[in-house]
């Protein structure tokens, strides 16, 4: 009986999903979220298709390496699916990115425990240390295209301590409000303002020191 019921529910979900996807236009997030909340994995994977670029980008920029970013992104989507019941509407993309940001922090902790890689604390301690950014001198001439420019900027971002990097990315790139970031990071608004202020100053200094990396941008 339970099996029959599960089959009926799955069939209903499939029909609803096909109906939502039909008609030649992309269904809105809300519709897919509703279907996914009913256990429709296809609907959720449509949301994954829609936002995996944003989630992976944030993860990569926060962690600085591809492997960790992939793990964090995958975990973020699984966590989001499991936590869909808690999603009470609003911007699904922001909600997903918040989960990804938290997942990245966990991933960083895991990696610290695993192989003693640079940790949150270590990056925080490095805040006042001399700046070190990756050497791009070999590819300066190549950094004229937009893609390369982005990489140059990402390399500057990675020179920031994790907390500042997270705040800058969420506010200046993903357009989160200050109080949203404060809530996400479980810190005060004042702390977030301070992190953003210091992060921007540091980023500007880095940019001024390595202006040649961005020569393509001036063209």
């Amino acid at each position, binding site marked *: 009986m339970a099996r029959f019921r599960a089959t009926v529910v799955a069939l209903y979900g499939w029909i609803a999903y096909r109906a939502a996807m039909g008609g030649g236009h992309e269904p809105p997030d809300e519709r897919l979220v509703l279907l996914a909340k009913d256990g429709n994995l296809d609907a959720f994977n449509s949301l994954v298709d829609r936002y995996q*670029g944003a989630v992976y980008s944030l993860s990569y920029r926060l962690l600085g390496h591809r492997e960790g970013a992939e793990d964090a992104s995958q975990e973020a989507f699984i966590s989001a699916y499991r936590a869909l019941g808690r999603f009470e509407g609003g911007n699904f993309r922001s909600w997903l990115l*918040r989960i990804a940001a938290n997942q990245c922090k966990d991933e960083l902790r895991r990696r610290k425990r695993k192989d003693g890689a640079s940790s949150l604390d270590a990056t925080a301690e490095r805040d006042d240390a001399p700046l070190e950014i990756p050497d791009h001198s070999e590819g300066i001439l190549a950094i004229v295209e937009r893609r390369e420019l982005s990489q140059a900027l990402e390399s500057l971002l990675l020179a920031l301590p994790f907390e500042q990097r997270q705040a800058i990315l969420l506010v200046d790139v993903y357009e989160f409000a200050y109080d949203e970031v404060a809530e996400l990071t479980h810190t005060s608004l004042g702390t977030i303002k301070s992190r953003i202020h210091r992060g921007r100053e540091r980023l500007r200094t880095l940019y001024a020191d390595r202006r040649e990396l961005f020569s393509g941008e001036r063209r």
Partner: protein
Amino acid sequence: MDFATLLRPHRRWHQLIVRSQDGDLATSERARLASHTATCANCAARLADSLTVATLLRGLPEREAPRSFHITSAMVAASAREPLPIGRPSGRPAFLLRGAQLVSGIAAAALVAVLVIDVSGGGGGDNDQASVELFSAKGATFENASGSNSSNSTGAPAATAAASAPTAALAAPTYDAGGGSASGGVPSPSPAPPRTGAGAEAPTARAVADGAKTADNDTQNAFGDDALSAEVREAARAEDGGDTLRIVEIGLAALLVAGLASLGWLGLARGRRS
């Protein structure tokens, strides 16, 4: 002007430059910054760099995902064995923990206060004292009542003796009755004025007998209605107050135990989760 501003006179301009990236400078602030950067090359360069970085950040393109992050039922099932790692833990345990702390604290403070009142004699601790006082007060009243009765009811010593004996015999049961009323019985609601013996006018044998009977009645009346009733009520009130205090103490103790048990349970749950 503070020391930091003296050392770095352009500090406030630098702060304005950083804030300008949010685009929420007031018109007056923007005008002041513009007029300053028109004359200060250093701040102008700083502003230009800040705006360039802000533009670059806003235009940072999305990276292409290196693979699909589609999830499968197997992935969900595997992760279901672990607690959800996202976000902060639900607000409910934290709220419960705070609530349990509050309840335990209040219960402990109230319990201490009630115990202090109890021990210092403000309530139930007075019970025994009140009983003792009641006991002696009743004795005194009884003696007064029988004394006045004997002196008023007869002119003859025999009658006095006859009147005194049964009254004395009556003392113990009446006493018990008083005690009974003090521990739950209803004392006489309206105190009557003291009455004198009726047999005082005819000192015959019958009159003596009557006088003795009357004395008995008078004694009982004086005992039940007049002198004792106020004390009995007082004692009953003290006893009731004592009972109330006991109930409050037990209730507070139960609340404290419940609060501490909740704290322990929530602490364990939190430890397990972390």
